């Protein structure tokens, strides 16, 4: 058994890989804490399977591709629950006929990731159970993220005139039994928290099967970013997730700083850590009131939670002037310094929240109804949660103690003392406990940092650059492990921007939870996931 120091060393994995697969490995290198392996396309699945089973790389962080104009480059990122190393498998595919073996047979979490690559690049995955378009309509022509993509006119006006239901697929693939029914919930539905469609097959009052259909607000952020300059992309990444926009644009600026080789001033890092934790609190409050509204305690907690949120929004408004889409972080620091009296106001607000937390907990946990609606509902066991690709609070509710802030600290998370909130059962109630625990831990983190903010500059002047290289950064979003990967090829705009969104992976676990459950539990299960369609559809 390898020790912890060995496990944290990327070289170890590269040597093991070379010993195991000598001739199929084309090249190996270490980039930061990434162990990068270039593999022949025919052996990708073999190496990935070995990495999963022998080397304990538990989940795919993301799968992406780069269009190199003469070939397509496939990039897999895998995470490890006991080490900061990211195992990266890269492979070159033929551009005209890109075919590669699917990982879904042993890694179910790769299902949606591969469908997205098929949708965006036209890469065919052999052995995939359901390879069809994910974001775009089934009859869309072309693959948008390819460099030579020219948009063709899509007949949406005809669709609007004669309501076209994309039922063809379901009619072909589902031979319903006599006592079964197929229900389309959405795309506009009060309990779905966004624009997506939940398909459920029911027998009486019991759900036999349920699965999500997404893509109703797919904007193509990744493609839009390729036509903008590095500093112009910040507002776009801001609008990825409307509940936690602070964490998304901070992640983007951190990735660009890594690519540019710029270190932000220490004062900016303090401010960023504080606002990120504030954002986590606000995001979890929104989640809590959405859950409360859906399972029947509508007006009490909904109004209390929004009251609490308004105080934090006031603080955000003081530092950047916006209530929702902040665009506060910049390349090389933050946009503005914190104003006078802001710290005192933040302390007051935190003290208020701390005082009110037992009340909120009592409102939820003190109610027998809440226990009845959430205990043993939507249970994901530890193994299923890992296999299905659950992230963040969803994963920690299934008794996995994994947090990027602990395992691969960024900003100032290495210096502060906090615990990872976990729960054992993996049901909706556990997810509630984890998120409430995280709010309390966030308060602790802010309180440790708030008195130590050093004086000095808050922003370094960074002139526009034409970087050549790649940067990969991952952070702990309120919804889980999020990551960005930027490829620069010597221009003012990125060649490729990859956005790895945790809510997307959490949404793809819904089929595991909607099996043989009463129909009334859909509301609790869907609310427990903490969806944000903006970041899922990108």
């Amino acid at each position, binding site marked *: 058994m390898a020790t912890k120091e060995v496990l944290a060393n990327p070289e170890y994995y590269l040597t093991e890989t070379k010993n195991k697969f000598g001739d199929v490995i084309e090249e190996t290198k270490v980039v930061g804490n990434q162990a990068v392996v270039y593999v022949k396309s025919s052996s990708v699945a073999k190496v990935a399977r070995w990495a999963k089973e022998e080397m304990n790389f538990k989940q795919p962080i993301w799968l992406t591709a780069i269009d190199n104009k003469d070939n397509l480059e496939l990039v897999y990122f895998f995470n490890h629950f006991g080490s900061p190393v990211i195992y990266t498998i890269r492979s070159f595919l033929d551009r005209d006929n890109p075919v590669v073996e699917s990982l879904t047979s042993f890694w179910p979490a790769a299902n949606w990731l591969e469908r997205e690559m098929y949708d965006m690049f036209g890469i065919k995955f052999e052995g995939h159970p359901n390879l069809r378009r994910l*974001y775009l309509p089934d009859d869309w022509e072309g693959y948008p993220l390819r460099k030579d993509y020219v948009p063709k006119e899509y007949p949406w006006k005809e669709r609007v005139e004669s309501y076209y239901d994309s039922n063809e697929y379901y009619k072909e693939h589902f031979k319903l039994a006599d006592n079964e029914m197929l229900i389309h919930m959405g795309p506009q539905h009060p309990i779905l928290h966004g624009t997506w469609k939940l398909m459920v097959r029911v027998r009486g009052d019991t759900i036999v099967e349920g699965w999500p259909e997404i*893509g109703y607000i797919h*904007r*193509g952020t990744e493609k839009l970013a390729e036509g903008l300059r590095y500093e112009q992309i910040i507002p776009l990444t801001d609008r990825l997730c409307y509940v936690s926009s602070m964490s998304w644009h901070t992640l983007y600026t951190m990735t660009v700083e890594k690519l540019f080789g710029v270190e932000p001033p220490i004062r900016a890092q303090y401010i960023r850590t504080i606002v990120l934790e504030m954002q986590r609190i606000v995001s979890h409050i929104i989640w809590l009131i959405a859950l409360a509204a859906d399972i029947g305690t509508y007006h009490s907690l909904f*109004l209390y939670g929004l009251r609490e949120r308004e105080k934090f929004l006031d603080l955000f408004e003081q530092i950047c002037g916006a209530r929702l889409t902040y665009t506060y972080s910049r390349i090389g620091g933050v946009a503005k310094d914190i104003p006078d009296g802001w710290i005192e106001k933040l302390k007051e607000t935190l003290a208020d929240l701390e005082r009110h937390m037992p009340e909120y907990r009592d409102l939820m946990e003190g109610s027998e109804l809440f226990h009845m609606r959430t205990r043993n509902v939507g249970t994901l066991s530890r193994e299923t949660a890992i296999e299905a690709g659950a992230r963040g609070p969803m994963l920690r509710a299934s008794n996995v103690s994994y947090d990027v802030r602990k395992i691969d600290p960024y900003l100032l998370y290495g210096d502060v003392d906090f615990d990872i909130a976990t729960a054992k059962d993996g049901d909706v109630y556990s997810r509630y406990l984890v998120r409430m625990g995280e709010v309390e831990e966030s308060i602790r983190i802010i309180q440790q940092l708030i008195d130590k903010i050093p004086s000095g500059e808050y922003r370094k002047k960074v002139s526009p650059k034409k970087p050549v290289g790649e940067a990969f950064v991952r952070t702990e979003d309120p919804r889980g492990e999020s990551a960005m990967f930027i490829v620069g090829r010597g221009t003012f705009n990125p060649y490729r921007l990859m956005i790895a969104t945790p809510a997307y992976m959490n949404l793809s676990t819904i089929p595991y939870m909607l099996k043989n459950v009463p129909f009334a539990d859909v509301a609790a299960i869907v609310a427990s996931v903490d969806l944000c369609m903006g970041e899922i559809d990108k």
Partner: protein
Amino acid sequence: MTQSDTKVVKPDENEEVYVVKDAPILLTTVRTILRKGFGWLFNWARSHSPWLLYLGIKCCAIEIPMAAGAPRFDMERWGVFPPSSPRQADVMVVNGPITKKYAQVIKALYDQMPEPKYIVAVGECAIIGGPFKKSYNIISGVDKVIPVDIYIPGCPPRPEAYLNALNQLKKLVKRGRL
């Protein structure tokens, strides 16, 4: 539903099909008189209790209706109530980017709303496509799909702007459609 305006046809033993005939001439006449003579009364009543269907597509949905319905802004002071079904709604509030896949759904929801119906477009995305205007999958504005009465600019607009728009909407509803 009286016996005179329904007719039951039984093509199959297990199935009943209801066919609704046109309303009797007397009823239509009374309706027309009411509408022409007392339309202002209906419009006045309607303007004080708009039922709003929120098509929460993206960011603005957190501000409107969530924050606008919260204690600080409290839009229920204007008699606003959010029904869950478009069949009960007077006003549809659309926010967020309209994709080519979603346009047909918006039209379907619009068709389900009873007359007179009003549409409010919230935010830059719903007005012209916003920052995503150049995307391959975005329709530049919801007014390409359904007619819009009131635009609220902003990315996202503040709840105050929305409350102002509610008052504008009241004037519009009072004036009436015809």
